Structures are given as C-alpha cells and as structure tokens.
C-alpha cells in the first residue's frame, strides 16, 4: 500500500479517535448538589401521630467500615444535629432532654466505607516511552528483567451521613425499633454550609414524618 494510502488510513484512525474520545462522563456533568442522593426508609407500621417528643444525640458517631471508631463534635456535626432538630420541630415535635422520656430518639452518624483495589503492571518497563531505555545506562540493546510482579494498591473512601429515628415510647423485648432512616451520599456531604439544605431534602421526601 502506498504511503499516501497509509496516510489516509492514519488520518481516518486519528479522526475516529478524536470523535470516539468525546464520550461524556456523566459524573463530570454534575454539580456537587446534583451528585448527592437522598435515601429514606420507614417502618410502614409506625404511626408518627402517636409520637410528640424527641431527643437528638449531642455528638456524632463515626463508623468506619462497619465499626464504631469515635464520637465527635465538629462544626459539621453540630450543623447536621441542628438541622435535624429544626426539621422535627417544624413538623410539630417537641425537643426534650434525653432523661425526660422522649418518644423518639435521633442518632446522627458519619459513615465511611473504604474499598481497596489492586492494579497489576506486568512488563511496563518494555514501554520505553514511559521508562528509561537501557541505552541511558550504557547498555544499548539490553532489556529489563524484574524477578517479581509489579502492582499498585489504591484505596477509595466514601463518606455518608445517616440519621436514624428510633421509637423509645413503647419499647419492648429489649429492642429499640427503628421507625425512620435517612442517608445522604455523594460529593460535598460533609459541609456545615449545606447541612441544612441536605437534611431539609431528606425530610421533604418524608411527608408522613409529622406528629399530626
């Protein structure tokens, strides 16, 4: 095949690559607010009209990979606790002290999950474009040989806010029944500035959560 024909083929390939490389990444098209998802669940048998008072925790439980590791009170934690208090009060519930027999108890948690991956790099040293050519060391024509497998390890940690409401009123059988749970996942969750709007979004999709 003539050089000119190969030139056409290569130009066509590069053109195709340019068009094919324009794949949209949906995650890059989202603002931080759009990246967040709000998940709520409820006990279908719970009648929230039966509950009048509540008490919120004074600190946030930090749960990492399924284990409670700390209780903390950062500015972000305080913002979420205050937002939950505001939302429940707006729905007719009255906050009382923890030792005043509240009908509902509210837990606020920061949840972290870490996933680990391993990437293998077999024979990457053969790609001289990204590795020193043995010629540099005075050994032209030599190749590299490593007696072990090359790999890299990466960790991805995702954080979320979870809010659990448990029924203290009428608790039996040594169990505190969960009646509502809310979870916020995505980007920019741990923000004192947006804590109020995030908690508001959780409660907005739970119109049943009111005392009358």
């Amino acid at each position, binding site marked *: 095949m003539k050089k000119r024909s190969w030139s056409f083929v290569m130009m066509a*390939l590069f053109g195709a690559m340019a068009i094919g490389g324009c794949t*949209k990444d949906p995650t890059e*098209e989202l603002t931080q607010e759009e990246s967040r998802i709000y998940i709520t669940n409820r006990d279908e048998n719970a009648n929230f009209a039966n509950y009048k008072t509540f008490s919120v925790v004074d600190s946030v439980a930090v749960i990492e990979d399924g284990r409670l590791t700390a209780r903390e009170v950062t500015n972000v934690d305080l913002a979420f606790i205050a937002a939950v208090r505001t939302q429940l009060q707006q729905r007719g519930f009255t906050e009382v002290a923890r030792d005043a027999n509240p009908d509902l108890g509210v837990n606020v948690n920061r949840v972290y999950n870490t996933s680990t991956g391993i990437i293998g790099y077999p024979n990457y040293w053969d790609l001289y474009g990204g590795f020193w050519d043995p010629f540099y060391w005075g050994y032209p024509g030599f190749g590299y040989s490593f007696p072990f497998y090359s790999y890299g390890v990466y960790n991805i940690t995702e954080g979320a806010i979870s809010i659990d409401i448990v029924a203290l009123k009428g608790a039996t059988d040594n169990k505190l029944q969960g009646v509502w749970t809310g979870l916020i996942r*995505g980007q920019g969750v741990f923000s004192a500035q947006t804590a109020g709007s995030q908690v508001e*979004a959780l409660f907005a999709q*739970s119109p049943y959560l009111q005392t009358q």
Partner: protein
Amino acid sequence: MKVQITSLLFVALLGTVAVQAQQDRLTMNINYSVNTPIGNFKEESVNNTSWRGFNASIMYHINPKISVGFGTGFNDFYQKYPRALYSSPEGDISAVRSISAQTIPLLVKGRYNFAPGAGLQPFVGLGVGGNIITYDEYLGVIANGESSFGFAAQPEAGIFVPFRKEGSAGFTLGANFSYMPFDYGSLNNLNNWGVFAGFKFPLRD
C-alpha cells in the same frame, strides 16, 4: 476507553485486510455521524441526539455496482434528568438520574451502487453482525449498568459524489437505521436512526 480502543483496533484490522486483497478495488469510507434514539430507547432511556459518533467501512468492489466488506462505528448517547424521587422496595431515593450508552457495531456489509461512474452515485447497503454495548445508569455519582455483546443490523442509503469523473475518492452523505436489541430493565433495544457525512478513498498501490 476500553470500548473506544476495541473500535479503533477493528478499524486497524480493516486496514491490514487491505494489504491482502486486490487493492485497486478496495476503498475505505469514514464518516462523522449524528444519531437519534427512537422507540423504546427514546421513551425509556435517552431522547437526546448523539453528536459524538462515526462509522467506517472497508469495501471490496466485486463489480462496479456491488461491494462487500466490513464496517464498524461508534455512538455515545447521554441524557441527564432533573432531580426526582424514585420509590423502590429499598426505600425512596431522590437523585439526579443520568444515562450513558455507547454502541460499537461490528458488521459484515454489502452495498449496491445504482450509478457507478456518474457525478452523483446513489447507493443502498445493509450491514449485519454484532454490537458491543456499554450501558450505565447513574443516580448521582452511583452507577449501575452492564456491558454486553448483542446483535446489530444496519440498513443505509446515501449518495457518493466523486471528486472527479470515474474517480473512486469523494464525499459520502447518507442515512441509516440501527436495529440493536438490548435488555436492561424496561429497556429492550437501543434502536436509532442517523445521518452521516464523510469521505471515501481508495486503498491501492
């Protein structure tokens, strides 16, 4: 990225096939293509037009009217929906839903040229083969989806305008319909139609 490399490797393979055949009857056609979902694909998933696509083929001219060969292509479909509440047995989820779908057909093709040698040469064609599909649905940044290999059929019609009389290089302009079955939830196909424009040139010594 893996999906795009597969398509480019297939186009490169078409180039190596050229070396083996009688090259003065061999032509390559590459087009920019714009495709729009129809039917179930449009109703259940994406109704935005894809402006990110191409198709390419290498055809061997058995005679001036009939050519056969291989074809491929790529289309990227994307849609973002406003935040909405989705109810499921797992609870209520408020999220911004996004859909991203890529198709790479790998086809055996045939074309019929109605007026070889003319200034305007209308043609029709049909490609049948497989289809590499990557389909992802996002709720926020949380993705679920699948990749699969399915069936594809692609009838087409268009015109070829040679740069010079009797020449085998020139412009191509046409339209096609892609039949692409695909099962994912309530989605049962990725059918779409499109228009394309590009160049055809001979591969010869």
